[in-house]
């Protein structure tokens, strides 16, 4: 059977995507640099992540290290924008990224912050061959960049420990998402380099939840994320049309 590289299940990494982010790796931590939108977006997704983890594992978010004792895998960790905060909250963090440059950048930054994070230049293809499993997997803004999301979600699910929690965030394949996330963010506002996103790879919530359920997980919460241009602030909303996040849990 003949299949193109984009659909080959044994290879979920797209070299073009990896190269594009690598070029930007050094600028990950510049709040006014190319990743400014991610820094702006970070609080809202972190609060979703924190609240989901605290609810699922019955932790108190007002304590100093609510994630103590949880092994957490941050897939597509980039420069560590999520890995560092969840590490500060007490999780034992593994950050995985397909780009060696991102991992280099993330390692250097974590060392300066005195954070002990296991950053690895690996993909889920490799991780599933290892014995380590995780109570929490963060899968944030990654699935729209992988070649074969079905296989990718399947691999991620198999990395969860029993009773584990996976949190996903991505972009919806709607006209509004094209207008805002692709045309608006890349061409008008220049928030992101052109070509960051390929609208055709965006997933509708029902497509993603179907993949999650096919991988043996059950859907937890589903929420939209909306941007208020007047306040320059993101917040959770009922509108799933552009950015959305969801949580999924394994059977115990």
């Amino acid at each position: 059977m003949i299949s193109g590289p984009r659909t080959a299940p044994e290879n979920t990494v797209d070299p073009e995507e990896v190269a594009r982010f690598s070029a930007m790796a050094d600028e990950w931590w510049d709040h006014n640099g190319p990743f400014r939108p991610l820094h702006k977006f970070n609080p809202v997704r972190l609060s979703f992540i924190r609240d989901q983890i605290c609810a699922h594992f019955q932790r108190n978010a007002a304590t100093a290290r609510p994630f103590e004792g949880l092994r957490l895998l941050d897939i597509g960790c980039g420069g560590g924008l999520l890995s560092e905060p969840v590490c500060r909250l007490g999780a034992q963090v593994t950050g995985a990224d397909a780009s060696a440059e991102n991992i280099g950048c993330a390692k250097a930054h974590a060392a300066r912050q005195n954070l002990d994070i296991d950053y690895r230049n690996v993909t889920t293809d490799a991780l599933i061959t290892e014995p380590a499993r995780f109570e929490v997997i963060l899968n944030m803004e990654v699935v729209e960049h992988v070649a074969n999301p079905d296989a990718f979600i399947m691999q991620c699910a198999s990395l969860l420990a029993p009773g584990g929690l996976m949190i996903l965030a991505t972009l919806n394949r709607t006209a509004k998402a094209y207008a805002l996330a692709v045309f608006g963010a890349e061409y008008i506002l220049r928030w992101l380099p052109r070509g960051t996103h390929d609208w055709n790879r965006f997933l509708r919530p029902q497509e993603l939840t179907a993949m999650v359920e096919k991988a043996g997980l059950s859907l937890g919460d589903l929420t939209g994320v909306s941007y208020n241009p007047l306040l320059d602030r993101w917040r959770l909303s009922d509108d799933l049309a552009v950015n959305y996040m969801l949580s999924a849990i394994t059977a115990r």
Partner: protein
Amino acid sequence: MDADLIIAGGGLAGLSLAHAVAGAGLRVAVIDPVPLATATGAEFDGRVSALGRASYRMFDALGLADDMAAEAQPILDILVSDGAPSQGKYHGPSPLTLHFGHKDAGAGPLGYIVENRVIRVAQSRALARQGDIAFIAPDHVAAAVADADGVSVRLESGRTLRASLCVAADGRNSALRQKAGIRTVRWAYGQTGIVTTVHHARPHEGIAHEYFLPAGPFAILPMTGNRSSLVWTEPTARAHAIMQLDQGAFDAELAERFGSHWGAVRSDGPRWSYPLAFHLARDYIAARLALIGDAAHGIHPIAGQGLNLGLRDAAALAEIIVDAHRLGLDIGAPATLAGYAQWRRFDNMSLAVTTDLLNRLFSNDLPPLRFARNLGMALVDKIAPVRNLFLRHAAGEVGDLPRLLRGHIL
């Protein structure tokens, strides 16, 4: 890191911030040029503050209100009147008087008059209780050098402390603000506020009286017992002359303005004088630096809102910092600080401009302006919703209130 944040200035706003964030588990160091024993002494600060209802709620949430309660005078009513003299003599309030009663504005008093000294004592007790705030005094911040990962704060004593964020709560002439190159918009009012305590024969019944004289506002703020605190604004030269008067002459000048509604009056205790000036920082934040209180703004005391604004800064910054900390975010990162600047800038600016305009409108004796303000006051007095809006402003309950000002701990 030696601390999560270092606060330069252990004044009313600085220590409020320290208590709020330390209560949420952050490590705080406060640097102040004055030892606590001096700052809580009777000679250090003669002013009283009108704590709006919201500000008092914040002290309550922080566990400080119990230590102030016995010496906090509830404000039950506010009377505002235009007191233009006729034939060069003062004749008490004009018939056109604005009356704000606390019953118009919902439950409880509009706020409390508390001596600054009482607030400082309550804060120092809380410091001793809380125990986990490093209070370093006497010492100065010599330099604060920010980098990508934190800020190094060098003290005059030679120590260097490392933190994620430095807060400038070091007053109107903030050295940190100047070192950070943040410029201010400023002007002097040419007015000086004379502050002293007055005894009167009859009880004040919790009434605060703002009496607009052509030379400037004359505020009578009820204190516990048959006492009121006076904020008496005069052009600076005249204020200096009044400050020099002996008690008898001073009391005679006082009685002429004070009126006789509370019986015989006499001044008691020391007099203080404070030159009135306006300043507003052009930026509230710089690299790993945030300005709060007088370091960020100084406004005309006409509406008694200066400290309330500073406490709002402290409450807003505390909330932003604690929320970021609980998400594992860097509390000194530009994105965190931007949220603070955005939150506070509009509120502070609008009150600064309003108090400035009020002072300009009232501190004169021009007939057209007198007519206009009397008409305006009569209208405000007649229209209940407008009056309530003024009241809620005075109580500090308008706008996007930080959680602490709504009485919730972080």
